[in-house]
């Protein structure tokens, strides 16, 4: 598997990193602490208002995730982990607090700017795969590049290369319904990687898979981590969370614990 340095992703939008020139330094294996922060959440609150009823989903979450980390966010349902994932993925605004993604404050961006940040910075892997049934695997993987305005030939090349990374190059013209669940999720991973994102966000990626496909997909995420990518895995399952290097436990909208797993800090 090719090692793709982070810089290649950042060259897509130099304006986003201009405030932090230090990020442009060559990346490589580092100890936690001296790496540049990819995610910096400070006192994030999120309140949902439904009529007279208001729910505080997040009640002051501060979290720093460094470049190259593999972090699992774990918690029971209602703990606020989905809300946190939406905020991390720039799918939703926090009610208060600040969020810097790769050094850029995204907490006050408008919808169009956020669309651009999601497009260039974040690769999503969802529990439901969320592949478009009418499109081939290749076209599905191409989608982020379509919105990034990449021309057709380059899109095709990059989509095929991305599919090759998940060992599905020979399935590029298959429709999702012609693929197994595990294969579909791998296509989704290929799609998440195609834009060389700063952050890969996997929301319960194994929730709809049998155990062997689940192990397969988790293995793939670990591989991404080993190749230097920053991966955040959201799950309710402790065992799944232990694949990661660091586990952040959420409860009632607050971080309950934040600790390294037995193999935390190591990259192998």
């Amino acid at each position: 598997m090719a090692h793709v340095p982070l810089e290649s992703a950042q060259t897509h939008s130099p304006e986003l990193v201009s405030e932090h020139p230090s990020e442009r330094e060559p990346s490589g294996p580092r100890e936690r602490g001296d790496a540049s922060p990819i995610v910096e959440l400070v006192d994030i609150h999120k309140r949902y208002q439904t009529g007279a009823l208001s729910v505080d989903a997040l009640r002051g979450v501060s979290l720093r995730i460094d470049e190259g980390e593999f972090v699992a966010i774990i918690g029971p349902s209602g703990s606020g982990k989905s809300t946190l994932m939406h905020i991390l993925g720039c799918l939703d605004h926090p009610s208060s607090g600040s969020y810097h993604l790769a050094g850029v404050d995204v907490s006050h961006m408008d919808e169009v700017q956020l669309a651009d940040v999601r497009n260039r910075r974040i690769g999503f892997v969802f529990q439901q795969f969320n592949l478009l049934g009418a499109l081939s695997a290749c076209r599905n993987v191409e989608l982020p590049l379509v919105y990034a305005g990449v021309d057709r030939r380059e899109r095709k090349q990059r989509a095929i290369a991305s599919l090759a990374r998940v060992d599905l190059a020979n399935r590029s013209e298959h429709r999702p319904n012609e693929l197994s669940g595990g294969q579909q999720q791998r296509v989704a991973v290929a799609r998440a990687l195609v834009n060389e994102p700063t952050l890969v966000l996997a929301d319960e990626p194994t929730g709809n898979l049998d155990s062997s496909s689940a192990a397969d997909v988790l293995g793939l995420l670990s591989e991404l981590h080993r190749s230097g990518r920053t991966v955040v895995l959201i799950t309710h399952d402790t065992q799944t969370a232990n694949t990661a290097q660091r586990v952040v436990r959420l409860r009632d909208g607050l971080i309950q614990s934040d600790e390294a797993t037995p193999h935390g800090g190591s990259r192998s």
Partner: protein
Amino acid sequence: MSLVETLRSGLEAILGHRLRSALTVLGILIGIAAVILTVGLGEGATSSVNSAIANLGTNLLIVTPGSSSSGGIQGGFGSDTTLTYADAKDLSSRIDCPDIDAVAPTATTVANVTAGTKNWTTLIIGTTAAWPTVRSRTLAVGTFFSAAQVKDQAGVAVLGATTAEKLGLGANAIGETIDIGNVPLTLIGVLAPQGSLGGTNEDDMVLLPITLDQSQIQGSDSVQTIFLKADSQSTLGAAYTEATDELLSVHQITTPSKADFTITSQASIEATATSVDKTLTLLLAGIAAISLLVGGIGVMNIMLVSVTERRREIGLRKALGATPSAIRRQFLVEASVLGLAGGILGSSLGLLGALILPHFISTTIAIVWWAVAGSIGVALAIGLSFGVYPATRAARLTPMEALRSE
């Protein structure tokens, strides 16, 4: 996202939901085909009626008797016998009626005609030498009878093309003898075919001098119709006034409202017929327009359902970096492509119908190009305008709530 990419996404979505797309297109298709066929039907009827009326002859005035009254029962127009050959002769006077060019009274009856061993029952029309001029008719063979032959009650006849055929009289039959009752007539000419007008076959008739007809066959001096030809279109009004005044004076009627005759012009018949046809066309087009509107609402409905059904897709596309305007454009493109497809298929169906249907029903359907172009445009406009609301709704969905939906 470029226009090409937007188009491509739209087409992919359309092809990905074949049944739904087909049903949407069908709604528009039917509307468009209906518009083209109904407008074509209306235009076809108008033009065929107009050409039939034009065939009556140009600059024509038609004088018919008033209604008869017998024992308190009013007959219809033309049922009276107040018009005579003498009236026609008065109207021919260039002094009293300077703007009337030619006058042709017709005394019509139905009788059996024999020629050798064949016989045929048809209209027997007694008229004058001016008839071919007034009615814009020409002869296929032979000559029409002259004013002198009318005056002399000459035993001559001119046949319509159908009548000649039914009696077995071909092109070389000039000079043959035909009999009406026991009146022998020498065939001197056959009319060129004309076609039918309002159910009357203009090719099935026997024409003979009115003088002979009235004395030997009808036994009365009344005529059913007097055809008047004005010098030109511009003198038609003057001719109308002159004819009215002349007939009122010879019939010794002082109150015009009590006139025992009616004068209509070819133009007024045409205007009436045209206005009836226009009304009919408008009515049909109105119905078709409603079906088009229903088709448009169908597009909106299906697009709205599609937005609801595809919340996940919208959410996903947004998560992958689609801006609200990219989503809006995608749905607009889908709606307008569906509209346009409906328009093109509908016009093809309409045109096909316009070509095929006249073989099965006895009407002409005109191909009205403005209706074809217009309805394709309207279909596109329907797709666009009825797509705006669903597209806006799709664009407004936040990626999160769209992704969450099942």
